[in-house]
């Protein structure tokens, strides 16, 4: 099986060491969540894989070869950012088609898949709308359609469902699961929400401490997909934290900690 290997010797911002000695290997088609406190360098790690940040020592390989040429992003990459990052001057349809521009430049006979993707995310009727006329949830759907229109083998997601209400976030997670089941990309999903990671991922990589390193690499035993706040997910999270007593203290002050306390308060 082809594998993505992320090896980071050192990543510094000015003089501060942010990431050190990270070595993660992921099989193609695997869904990996990266969980850690905010500011730990999760987004930085994602930017490095995306080719947006080349200022580090280490190497990222896929199937034994460098993932991308220096200063470039890997081809066949889909990415969803924390904000939808749509071009406000392009319609919803054109925003999705923008991701196909490279494909179209290579292959003049390429037929756009944007309409069928917009169908899939339930936005066909809005394809001629301006993004700023859409709700936050619809903007994120557009961003999802843009990421999947390139049929990515590698999908990077940086807390894509934060600042949405619970229902909209649940719908989007369900949509993501459907799209992933069809396209089967290798997913790196950054989140600070342990339950979200448990619900979506096959495997969870916990980052913690300064400089950040892998605190725990955890394989999720899947018992079928559930809602974020279902009893099953709560049980999974309890079992995980019971087996790894040190996890919370190693990531102390983290959002993981907070989300747990919030959970118990309910």
């Amino acid at each position: 099986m082809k594998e993505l290997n992320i090896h980071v010797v050192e990543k510094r911002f000015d003089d501060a060491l942010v990431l050190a000695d990270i070595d993660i290997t992921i099989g193609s088609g695997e869904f990996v969540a990266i969980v850690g406190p905010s500011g730990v360098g999760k987004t930085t790690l994602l930017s490095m894989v995306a080719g947006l940040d080349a200022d580090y020592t280490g190497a990222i390989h896929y199937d034994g070869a460098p993932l991308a040429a220096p200063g470039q992003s890997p081809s066949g990459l889909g990415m969803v950012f924390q904000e939808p990052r749509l071009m406000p001057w392009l319609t919803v349809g054109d925003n999705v088609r923008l991701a196909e521009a490279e494909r179209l430049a290579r292959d003049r006979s390429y037929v756009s898949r944007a309409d069928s993707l917009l169908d899939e995310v339930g936005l066909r009727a809005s394809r001629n709308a301006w993004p700023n006329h859409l709700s936050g949830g619809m903007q994120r759907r557009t961003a999802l359609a843009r990421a999947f229109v390139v049929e990515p083998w590698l999908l990077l997601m940086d807390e894509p469902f934060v600042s949405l209400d619970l229902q909209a976030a649940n719908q989007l997670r369900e949509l993501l699961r459907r799209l992933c089941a069809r396209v089967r990309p290798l997913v790196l999903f950054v989140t600070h929400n342990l339950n979200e990671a448990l619900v979506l991922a096959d495997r969870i990589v916990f980052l913690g401490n300064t400089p950040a390193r892998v605190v725990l690499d955890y394989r999720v035993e899947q018992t079928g997909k559930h809602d974020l706040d279902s009893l099953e997910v709560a049980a999974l999270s309890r079992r995980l934290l019971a087996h790894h007593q040190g996890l919370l203290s190693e990531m102390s002050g983290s959002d993981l900690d907070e989300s747990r306390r919030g959970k118990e308060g309910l």
Partner: protein
Amino acid sequence: MSFIRHRAGPGDMSRAIGRPEPRVASPTRWRWLRLPSGRGWLWRSASLIGLAAVWEIAARLAGSNMLPTPVAVLAAVYRDTRSGQLPLELGITMARVVAAFVVAMTVGTVIGYMMGRSHRLNLALDGPLVLALNIPALVIIILCYLWLGLTEVAVIVAVALNKIPVVVVTTREGTRAIDARLLAVAQVYRVPRTVTLYRVILPQLYPYLIASARNGLALIWKIVLVAELLGRSNGVGFELSVFFQYFDITSILAYTLAFAVVVMVIEAGVMRPLEKHLMRWRG
């Protein structure tokens, strides 16, 4: 009333309560003053008519050749339009304006964009830019005539040189304001460079480009007239110099009026619709 109470300090409170309520203009009371949107032209034409009326009255009171009445000026416009002289001179001047405008916008935008992107280039060119911004238009025009001769090229170069630094400054500001997060999207999806330019970069520069185009049009036609006055034998500026020698104030005002109207028509008929189209996503 509620917002007045809210904003008053604790000491003012008792006094405010003791006083009768101030009369707050209700929305309905002033409705007749507010014109419905889309009728902006009503205000515009009202102010222009008012201006013409003031002019007419002043001219009659003065009763002198020094200030002809608007009617006399309009008559002169009509006379020279029928004879064909006014349209011809207007056309010649307009061609110069357009040529200088295109050169200045193109060169200024490219330099401004590069200065906005490259810190080093900005450091290298910022000094000359400040210098260029402060050279009087007249000096540039005279030097161009001396170096390039009394030619058409000299006019266009001189006028463009006057405008380029202003375009550079505006475009540089716009380039610095480009959202790096949207550029990251283009990079991640490996969007080809030309598509990135037209779909990601230029739309962010449009507000700045439109602003400098509008200011540019206003600035350029004024400078073209000066250049024509100094070194050409045709165009509105040259005609004005002839009228100046004959003390023909009526014709001076007639040509000025005609040209100003043409520029306003371009502003209303080209610039504003263009801006509306490019910025339609904001609505």
